[in-house]
């Protein structure tokens, strides 16, 4: 009965509780302390920024290009570009984070376009993604397979919302769209994800 109710529950942007490891209160406070140092090109500020965001950026890049080396290259290039652009970037730590994610996204989309020109089959790389992820704890292998069925934009929105814990405004900034579109995409992605998982087995979480 509980299971049925969980499946039938209306899906909204509030359905998932936003939890991001890199976006806890402490991390955000730490992030907010960085922009001034970054603008001054202080090496310690860049070190902290890298420690806070590099893994998230890499995961985001990987969700787009599905290639470990390309994702890591995109992250490095984004930080090197930040060195050049830092004095001109305004705003708080969140603005800095949005800037980096946007930069990584551009680089990944460029990479995809390059691949498209080379007529590479993107689907052929999915095994690399699955193989490199190793054993997925807690049945996340199913979720990873389910996410691969989402659109590129849906995956990006889910990652930024659920993994990085970004607000609708931040996600909209990174993806260069508006908040309404972000929420609509997130709702569709979550609904689709639940549908895929329910078709494959009893994956819906039990109510607390």
């Amino acid at each position: 009965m509980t299971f049925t109710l969980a499946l039938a529950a209306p899906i909204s942007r509030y359905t998932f509780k936003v939890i991001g490891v890199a976006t806890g209160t402490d991390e955000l406070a730490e992030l907010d302390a960085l922009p001034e140092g970054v603008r001054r090109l202080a090496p310690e500020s860049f070190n902290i920024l890298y420690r806070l965001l590099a893994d998230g950026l890499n995961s985001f890049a990987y969700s787009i290009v599905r290639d470990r080396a390309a994702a890591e290259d995109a992250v490095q290039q984004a930080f090197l570009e930040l060195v050049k652009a830092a004095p001109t970037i305004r705003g708080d730590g969140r603005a800095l984070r949005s800037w980096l994610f946007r930069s990584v996204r551009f680089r990944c989309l460029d990479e995809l376009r390059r691949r498209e020109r080379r007529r590479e089959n993107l689907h052929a790389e999915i095994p690399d993604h699955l193989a490199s992820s190793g054993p997925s704890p807690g049945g996340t292998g199913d979720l990873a397979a389910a996410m691969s069925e989402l659109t590129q934009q849906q995956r990006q929105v889910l990652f930024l919302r659920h993994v990085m814990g970004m607000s609708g405004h931040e996600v909209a900034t990174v993806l260069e769209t508006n908040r309404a579109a972000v929420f609509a995409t997130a709702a569709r992605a979550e609904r689709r994800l639940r549908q895929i998982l329910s078709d494959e087995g009893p994956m819906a979480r039990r109510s607390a």
Partner: protein
Amino acid sequence: MARPSMSDRIRQAMWRPISTERRGLDLAAIEAALAEAVRTGSAVPRVRRRLALVALTAALVIVPAGMALAAEGSVPGDLLFPVKRVTETVRSWVDEDVVAVHRIEELEKMIRAEVAADRIADQVDRAAAAIDRLETDHVLDQRLAAVAAGPTDVRPSDVADSGTVGEASDRPPGIAPPVDTPPTSEHPSGSATTTTSTSVVDSTTTSVTDTTTTTALDTFRVAGRVLAGPTCPVQRFPPDPDCADLPVAGAVLVVTTLDGKELARVESTEEGRFQTRLPNGIYLLVPQPFDGLLGTAPSQEFVLEGAPVDLQVGYDTGIR
């Protein structure tokens, strides 16, 4: 054991930490890029960049504006005078008097500075030409007359023999020699009969005539209209508008002294109008014969005494 939330599961499915080896490489690359940026100065502090912006603004806006302001007080021959000419051209789009006012103010300054008489005479010409270009000029005309008739102390070195200065040698070509005209007012400098030269610019025909007067610098507009009549065989009363006198274009009028020396020669415009400038004095306006008209209009004597004069010249059509 509770199942992880959907967000946790998404995170676990998508989380891809950077490898330790790559992490070290990235940090080294960032450090090198930072050092390079600092070395090449691309990391100019915001304050310095703002200062640079202020300096640029000063160079592009403040300095030219300051130069334009400084040029306001310049007179012909000064380094900044060309700047003043440019700014007054722009200002004249909204204030048509500005050029004439400037010329008069410059004349005042030059008189105070006791510059050479020929330069003052040239400036009078410029001021008069600027006033002539205006549609309503009588106020400035009187101001120019007042300035020019003011205390003009001509230095002895500027006075040539028999009291004439500014001879034709330093005049543009086509200028008639100086002509004496009867003095009509005493010079403020008292007993010394200093005379200076004044150019008379004929705006209609662009001919330039020099004349020499004792009052030197004041010139006044002599203007008028050349008409021909009658135009109908029978004159009616009240006059028929269709039979009004017609303007004569291209009629040549000569201004002479009473003893017949030619001072200026003007030609009437399409509307029959003519205009010239002369110093105070008594003159004769002598219309010249005009093809197609019977005889010539009678000569008329006129007096310039500190104010412009309007004249009417009537040719006879021969229609009876």
